[in-house]
């Protein structure tokens, strides 16, 4: 169950401040799409509009539409809570619930959707989700220990397990490796490669090599200056973006980072 996303003419505002202007793009099902661009250009802001998480911030709002398999997520009849059950999210800093055990963390989202899950099903789901997040072998003997007792990289994989346990259609990741060491980063990148056979994945990253390694498509966002809105400059196959981008700005950004 994975879905494609089409964004048409999306503007995002914080109060009266236009943070992201007129973005239109398509995200393919069962693929990895990377968002790159300088700090403050609105990557996180835009990403959060894909599961309506921006609505958590007072004053944040959008204009335009986001279609998930043709269904407009901003239709007045759509419940943002339901959207988030289909579009999962992994944050920059690992955020397992400190008061829950490892197993409880994995089940947290499932318990919301489906209060009565049998003990056997729950155990099975914990195992399959943790295996899915490449964490099972490391934690199988201490599932009842608090989630915060894990290392940063393990915590991040726990968060991924928690997100995939509810079987979302789309998985959004906002710089999921920026707080991690290179080994944990590689583990997560491998994981992303495996997950894309089942999920549509969107990842924000500051790491060019990471974007090049994991994604099929790359979107480059830029900002003209402070106080100006961020814009989508171009989006193309990752290999094209990194070898022969159409726009000068993209090339400058990429070569600046590499050079």
């Amino acid at each position, binding site marked *: 169950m994975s879905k494609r996303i089409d964004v048409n003419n999306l503007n995002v505002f914080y109060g009266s401040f236009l943070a992201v202007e007129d973005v239109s793009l398509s995200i393919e099902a069962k693929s990895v799409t990377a968002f790159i661009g300088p700090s403050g250009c609105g990557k996180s802001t835009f990403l959060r509009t894909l599961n309506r*998480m921006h609505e958590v911030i007072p004053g944040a709002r959008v204009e335009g539409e986001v279609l998930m398999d043709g269904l407009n997520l901003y239709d007045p009849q759509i419940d943002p809570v339901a959207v988030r059950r289909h579009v999962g999210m992994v944050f920059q800093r690992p955020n*397992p619930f400190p008061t829950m055990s490892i197993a409880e963390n994995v089940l947290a989202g499932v318990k919301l959707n489906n209060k009565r899950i049998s003990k056997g099903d729950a155990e099975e789901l914990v195992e399959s989700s943790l295996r899915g997040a490449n964490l099972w072998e490391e934690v199988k003997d201490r599932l009842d220990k*608090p989630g915060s007792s894990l290392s940063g990289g393990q915590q991040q994989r726990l968060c991924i397990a928690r997100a995939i346990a*509810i079987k979302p259609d789309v998985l959004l990741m906002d710089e999921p490796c920026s707080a991690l060491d290179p080994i944990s980063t590689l583990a997560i990148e491998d994981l992303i490669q495996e997950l894309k056979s089942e999920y549509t994945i969107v990842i924000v990253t500051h790491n060019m090599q990471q974007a090049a390694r994991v994604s099929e498509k790359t979107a480059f966002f830029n900002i003209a200056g402070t106080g100006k809105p961020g814009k989508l400059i171009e989006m193309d196959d990752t290999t094209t973006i990194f070898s022969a981008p159409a726009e000068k700005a993209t090339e400058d950004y990429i070569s600046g980072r590499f050079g």
Partner: protein
Amino acid sequence: MTVTEKSGAEKVELTAHRRSVANGVFTGASAAAASLILVVLAAVAAFLLTEAWPALTMDAAELGDRISWIKPEDGQSLIQVTGYLVFGTVLIATMALLIATPLSIGIALFISHYAPRRLASGLGYIIDLLAAIPSVVYGLWGSIVLIPVLQPFYDFLGTYLGWFPLFATDPTTGTVSATGRVALSASLVLAIMVIPIISSVSREVFLQTPKLHEEAALAMGATRWEMIRMAVFPFGRSGVIGATMLGLGRALGETMAVYMILSVGLSYSWNVLLSGKHNTIASYIAGQFPEANAIGVSALIAMGLALFIITLLVNMAARWIVSRRSEFSGAN
């Protein structure tokens, strides 16, 4: 500006020294402040114990002779009177807390997570003001305004829920107290008095829930209430328990409001709608102290000691509850 190497080195040494002095002073000062608390606590305990000693060690019959309010002819002794009072104190304070805690948590949550920002800050300010009202004003308001309002409600409870032990009517008259000066009134006024304390501390705790955890819950498709149960309550648990203990401390020790509201008596009665059945330690001490002789004062202090011990036990219980799952507190 150029400095020779030597004077540069001296400067470094000097600043380091100054900083370590400041550091030492501060460490000393905070350690002193912390030990002061212990000293005060020990001093209070020692005072209570020495002053209560004459009454505690005196022969029961002699004590009954010398203190007018201990009536051996009714089978009373100091221990027994204190027992009644401990019961009354704990009963009234517990009821107050049972009423105040859910309300306070609701108020705190409304302010921290539901109300629009402007309304929230206004409400928070009003609640903080409520905490500043002196208890004698609460006592006056309770007995003049609140009790007449509550009386018909008590009648209703007695008539329709009289089978429930707490709301039982007087077996001879078949009605509840006509004055409304009953334990439940005292508890209600105490509840109103402690709501500002519990809710303002809880509000601060709830506001400090990490955004990270709130967003984690919301991003999984939690509703606001589910997010609160998942992220806010577990995070705020120990804080709310602490807040409740603060409230309980105030409810246990409150003197004036209870003294002005309650029609007092001594018994182990659960009938909180009957007057002349209960009293609290603090209110009893306040009532008897002006008339008490030397040994009477000593006996009253013994009761104060009992109150002190109750408060201590309650606090220890709270600590135990908080520490039970400290591994999961998220402190790391």
